[in-house]
């Protein structure tokens, strides 16, 4: 069952073609990994899906309804939540206040996010977000997105800057969220992490969708190896 369909999505910024005729089906309940070299258009795609920017052409449909490209407010209404590559949380407020805002003021369908053991934010409740270690901030960003009570969660490079332990924890949190039926699209540079977490992988290069398949198929595909994995393996080795 396809939760979201993307058809012929294109987006240009001046002379730069960030997205070129991208079509993709996202089945409900999966974890879809999105990889590709820098400039492949992964974040642009996330931005379009979440409604942050509009595509130049193409359309999307969510839940079978052909609703076309949508602004962010409407996307959240449908149940699409996201995190940001540069972590966005309310820096000047405490963790408790951050979560309160997400729960009370926004779409706030999930009230129990704060005590989610996968995210383990309880020890930091009264700390101001701006003082938190990077890894905790990332978890808070995810918690805020989860508090929206989404049906589709878009994670933009969740593992960036995390230690090995923190990455494992993030993987567990993602799987746990998916267990309860949440569909997740995951953009990542850390190929090893992504291959472990994702059930389905889409590879992008220069704005186009190059390949779709299971992680194993992806790693075996020559075109993908040529374009990305050759470099990616070296990156993941860090």
């Amino acid at each position: 069952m396809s939760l979201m369909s993307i058809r012929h999505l294109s987006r240009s910024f001046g002379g730069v073609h960030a997205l070129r005729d991208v079509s993709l089906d996202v089945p409900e309940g999966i974890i879809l990994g999105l990889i590709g070299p820098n400039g492949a258009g992964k974040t642009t795609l996330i931005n379009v899906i979440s409604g942050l920017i509009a595509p130049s052409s193409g359309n999307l449909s969510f839940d079978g309804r052909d609703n076309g490209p949508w602004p962010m407010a409407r996307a959240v209404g449908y149940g699409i939540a996201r995190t940001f590559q540069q972590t966005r949380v309310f820096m000047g407020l405490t963790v408790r206040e951050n979560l309160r805002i997400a729960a009370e003021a926004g779409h706030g369908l999930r009230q129990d996010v704060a005590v989610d053991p996968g995210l383990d934010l309880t020890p930091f409740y009264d700390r101001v977000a701006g003082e938190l270690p990077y890894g905790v901030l990332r978890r808070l960003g995810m918690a805020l997105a989860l508090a929206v009570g989404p049906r589709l969660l878009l994670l933009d490079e969740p593992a960036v800057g995390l230690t090995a332990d923190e990455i494992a924890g993030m993987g567990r949190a993602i799987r746990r969220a998916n267990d309860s039926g949440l569909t997740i699209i995951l953009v990542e540079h850390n190929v090893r992490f992504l291959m472990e977490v994702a059930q389905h992988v889409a590879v992008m290069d220069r704005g186009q969708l190059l390949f779709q398949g299971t992680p194993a198929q992806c790693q075996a595909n020559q075109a993908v190896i040529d374009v990305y994995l050759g470099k990616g393996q070296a990156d993941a080795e860090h």
Partner: protein
Amino acid sequence: MQSRLRCYLVPTAFLAVACAATPFINDYVRYVATLAAIWAVLAVSFDVLLGYTGYLSLAHGALFGVGAYTGGLLTARAGWSFWLALPVCGLVAMAVGIVVALLAFRTKGLYFAVLTLGIGLIGFQMFFVAEDWTGGVVGFVGIPSPPPLPFMSLDAAGNNLVIALLLLWVTYLAAGVFVRSPMGAASLAIREDVVLAQALGIRISAARLTAFAFSAFFAGTAGMLFGAISNFVAPESFAVMTTGFQMVVLVVVGGMGTLWGPILGAILLTTLPETLRVASSYSLLAYGVLLLVFMLFAPKGIAGLLKQAWHARRARQAAVAAPAAQPVTEGVR
């Protein structure tokens, strides 16, 4: 629940004490205190927009004026009672404020401030131009004083002070209700990070419009009371670079976003002698310097400094220090 009760109890206690002290202070102090209370009403409600929602509006001086002139028209010309006119003036100012807001919120940041500055200036011009309604440059004379409160045998000055304190009490409690509500949480989110707020499903327009309307309503009531106790208003009391600017100073110096800080700011700054009706160049210059100094060295205002001192004292008293967490080492934005 206990802190909830405290939110209502503490201000009420202050009100009771202040009212009880009224008969014992002389007329001049009462007058200054009354003006301080009116400025505090302005400051607290303005803080909801500036401190909580993060929008700098310079149109509020004109909204204050709208309340004052409407009050004059209703009580002096149409013979309405003070108590009926008071909320109506608030509503009129709120209606004007909503129109201004609908326009101004199509921009953001500096453009918003400049647009409200322009609207404030035009409003100020209108007070001169609409002579038949406002009395023009001569001013609006003959505004009746507030009627004496029942069950209290107070003279005029004492009466004015108690009414002003009552208005401040209502304003402060209302602001507290707003801030603790989902709208208040949304306003806070808008101030901190609008994009994130949107990504969380927060309705930006509704929240900030409500904050603006709230501050406009109380600016209007403050204006009406100001007219009633002065028995006279003139356009120069509602200029942007004086009144509008002073509101910013009160909130910032008092402590943005705290609600009680601006009350301190109002009390402290109203005691500067020449600001009582129309600010002179020297006091305005002092305000400007004060604002700049606070912005540079104490951006959280007096409230912030007090809170810092309080926490420092608590930390010294604590027997065991909590383990320090890692500071954020990588840039997160």
